[in-house]
């Protein structure tokens, strides 16, 4: 009897203690302290303290998982920081948004920007020792065109080998930045190695970068180790992709709060792209250092161009909607106060963005002005529909609140990514669509969204605005890519409220302050390059 009583008391106390231990407690800075047992795939410290083990492995937490190492991939995740460690490409974009040759030794253009002759280095070898020639590059380009995973590659008309290490690419478009983008996304891999792989490099990969993959678990981690047999003279490697860190593990952590936990427990040394809500708690903590960079993809509200939708042909209604939304409110609600309002449909990180736009009016938030515009519009109380991804429902709800305040009825339609992808280009399915569009140049961004001939249904929202189309086409050519022409497109989209740039969230990289960072090198996405930066205490 006594034993049972004691057991019941012990059980009750245990439950209570475990709950209380988790709640509250002393609020101390999250100082990395006692080291503990290893947990990371390659022996980083995991279960316990954040102090460094000095094992030379830099462990990086990152949210975008990698399920396969295949080089044939869509645009999703293409800018993930591990991509340049897997495969070298013909060129790379540096932190100044300049394309720098990497595996390409040289290239020349002719035929008004439609034809390019490229020469690659003659001593490229992959991590399995295969010698890379022009045949491999031609094969990669042809396979990528066939796979149709990236829209840019569909603009390649032909690719022909012209020598052992030279080839020629003919394009169907001479749009500014197109060839540079193709160079960036053309991976240098050995056809023989790829064909010998049992699953197309999905789980075992032969790399061409200065690193080789020494550990990979889909959706969990990937480990890179510097190659001893790297083919290139290090002085010729672009600084942003230099290989300084001997061993790097990327650990995929999809749950936001666990990113912070991983950092605090020493499971990772650094977290790249930490959500702002989690990151803010480390900003004033001396044990951690942070780097904020603007997102490459700002949030934009696209208006449907389909005639069946009330917003399609009602400029005043669209303008009323733009004026009713407070970007600062969105930044506070969605990005924990870390973001900046947008002054164009593109974020300022896009090549070609004109900083003078930042000082001009861009639908300044004004509820009364919005109501006045609404009164001038043809809006008659219809229910307007906002389409968004299920992960952005909160943003849609905030916008719904702003629009409700001026008397616009809004219905939300939050879908999972697969459903969203299926209908996002069909303007008959929504009035407004919240989305981010990534593009390196303004011309590229505009071609994806506003070219009336881009898709069977018109532009990216089923609009058929050929006036805008003509303006766009002028900016696509090298000669037409002038400030005047770019301005013309910017003001047309802005004045007609074709779409509205909401805000650009900041992205955070947080790391232990004692990581000993020296000579920080940033990649084009604005993150400290984990391979090219020197970590003295990794």
């Amino acid at each position, binding site marked *: 009897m006594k034993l049972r009583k004691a057991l019941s008391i012990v059980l009750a106390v245990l439950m209570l203690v*475990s709950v209380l231990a988790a709640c509250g407690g002393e609020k101390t800075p999250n100082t990395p302290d006692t080291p503990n047992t290893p947990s990371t*795939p390659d022996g980083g410290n*995991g*279960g316990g303290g954040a102090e460094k083990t000095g094992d030379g492995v830099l462990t990086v937490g990152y949210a975008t998982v990698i399920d396969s190492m295949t080089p044939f991939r869509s645009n999703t995740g293409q800018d993930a920081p591990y991509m340049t460690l897997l495969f070298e490409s013909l060129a790379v974009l540096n932190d100044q948004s300049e394309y720098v040759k990497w595996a390409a030794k040289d290239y020349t253009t002719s035929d008004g920007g439609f034809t390019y002759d490229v020469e690659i280095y003659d001593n490229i070898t992959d991590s399995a020792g295969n010698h890379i020639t022009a045949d491999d590059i031609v094969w990669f380009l042809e396979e990528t065109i066939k796979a149709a995973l990236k829209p840019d590659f569909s603009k390649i008309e032909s690719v022909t080998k012209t020598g052992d290490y030279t080839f020629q690419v003919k394009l169907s478009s001479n749009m500014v930045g197109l060839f540079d983008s193709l160079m960036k996304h053309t991976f240098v891999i050995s056809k023989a190695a790829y064909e010998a792989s049992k699953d197309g490099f*999905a789980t075992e990969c032969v790399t061409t970068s200065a690193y080789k993959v020494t550990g990979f678990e889909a*959706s969990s981690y990937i480990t890179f180790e510097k190659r001893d047999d790297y083919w290139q003279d290090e002085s010729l490697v672009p600084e942003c992709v230099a290989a300084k860190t001997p061993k790097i593990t990327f*650990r995929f952590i999809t749950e936001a709060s666990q990113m912070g936990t991983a950092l605090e427990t020493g499971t990772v040394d650094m977290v790249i792209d930490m959500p702002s809500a989690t990151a803010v708690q480390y900003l004033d903590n001396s044990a951690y250092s942070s780097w904020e960079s603007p997102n490459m993809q700002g949030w934009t509200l696209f208006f449907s161009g389909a005639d069946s939708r009330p917003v399609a042909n009602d400029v005043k209604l669209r303008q009323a909607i733009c004026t009713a939304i407070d970007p600062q409110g969105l930044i506070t609600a969605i990005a924990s106060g870390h973001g900046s309002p947008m002054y164009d449909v593109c974020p300022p990180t896009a090549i070609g963005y004109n900083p003078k736009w930042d000082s001009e009016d861009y639908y300044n938030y004004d509820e009364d002005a919005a109501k006045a515009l609404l009164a001038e519009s043809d809006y008659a109380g219809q229910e307007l529909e906002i389409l968004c991804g299920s992960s952005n429902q909160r943003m849609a709800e905030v916008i719904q609140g702003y629009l409700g305040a001026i008397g616009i009825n809004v219905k939300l339609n939050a879908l999972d990514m*697969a459903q969203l*992808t299926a209908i996002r280009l069909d303007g008959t399915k929504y009035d407004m669509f919240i989305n981010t569009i990534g593009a390196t140049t303004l011309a590229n961004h505009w071609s994806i969204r506003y070219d009336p001939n881009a*898709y069977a249904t018109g532009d990216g929202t089923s609009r058929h605005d050929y006036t805008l189309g003509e303006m766009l086409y002028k900016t696509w050519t090298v000669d037409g890519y002038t400030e005047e022409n770019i301005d013309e497109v910017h003001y047309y989209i802005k004045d007609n409220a074709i779409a509205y740039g909401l805000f650009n969230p900041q992205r955070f990289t947080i790391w232990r302050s004692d990581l000993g960072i020296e000579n920080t090198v940033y990649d084009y996405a604005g993150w400290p390059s984990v391979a090219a930066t020197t970590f003295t205490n990794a």
Partner: protein
Amino acid sequence: MGRYIIKRLLWMIPIALGVAILVFTLMTFTPGDPAQTLLGATATEEDLNAKREELGLNDPYFVRLFDYLGDVFIRFDLGNSWITSVSIIDTIKIRMPRTVILTVVTLIIAFGLGIPLGVLAATHQNKWQDSVSMVLAMIGVAIPNFWLALLLVVAFSVKLRWLPAMGIEMGLISYILPALSNCTGALANCARQTRSSMLDVIRADYITTARSKGVPERSVIYKHALKNALIPIITAAGTAFGRLLGGAMIIETIFDIPGMGTYIIGSLNNRDYPVVQGGTIFLAIVFSILMLLVDLLYAAVDPRIKAQYASSKKRKKVKANA
């Protein structure tokens, strides 16, 4: 008994077939175009059609269904993932053991604590021990596992630094926090089931007889009563095992465990039909086997059920001997 097992194993064929047809049909009519998901929103109609043709999505429903059933049930091939091109069965071989470990550790904790808690409640019916046990059980049912998971991480990983916060690299230790977070529902159900089952049994005549014969109370409860109360608890354990195998997605995500839950749900979001179908069929087969094992366990703990499984020849022999 052997005939019974063979009969049950044969029953698994129509069950797996039914699950395969159901999942295939549901996936076929789920909104979202796999070709569009694979190629992205900016793919041209021509590219999309080519991809649909490549994936066989342009074929009529019945052609695709019979092709799929042929692959699975005749060639025993679950196919490859559309997203990663990796063999589904190979991926299951890697991921399934992690989910099984998580489930087993969860059940050990849930039933290791739930049964004593239920017994305590039953033997002290309407006393404070009963109330405390049942309140704990209610709390267990009510606590969301993701919330508990985060609390446990803060307590045991961040503050106390006893256990890893994520990953599986430290072996079984890595599964303690995930299992603790995952076990509350099963623990609560087990405690309530044990209490109710024990209350039925401890009022039985043979328990009174045992007591009147002077058998120590401890033996009465744990040898006589609990053994006879086990049948519903075993049923609960089997059902919980099956549910936990397929439903650990949230815990796997929080604790960074690349198991079956995240595999199937991730694939569902990407409309990776072969993975969803293959993973679900595999889990259905595992669940059927588990239910068979549960039935066999009934026989192990209850001789009356064992006697039912005995062949008619054996039964006649036993009768004749009697």
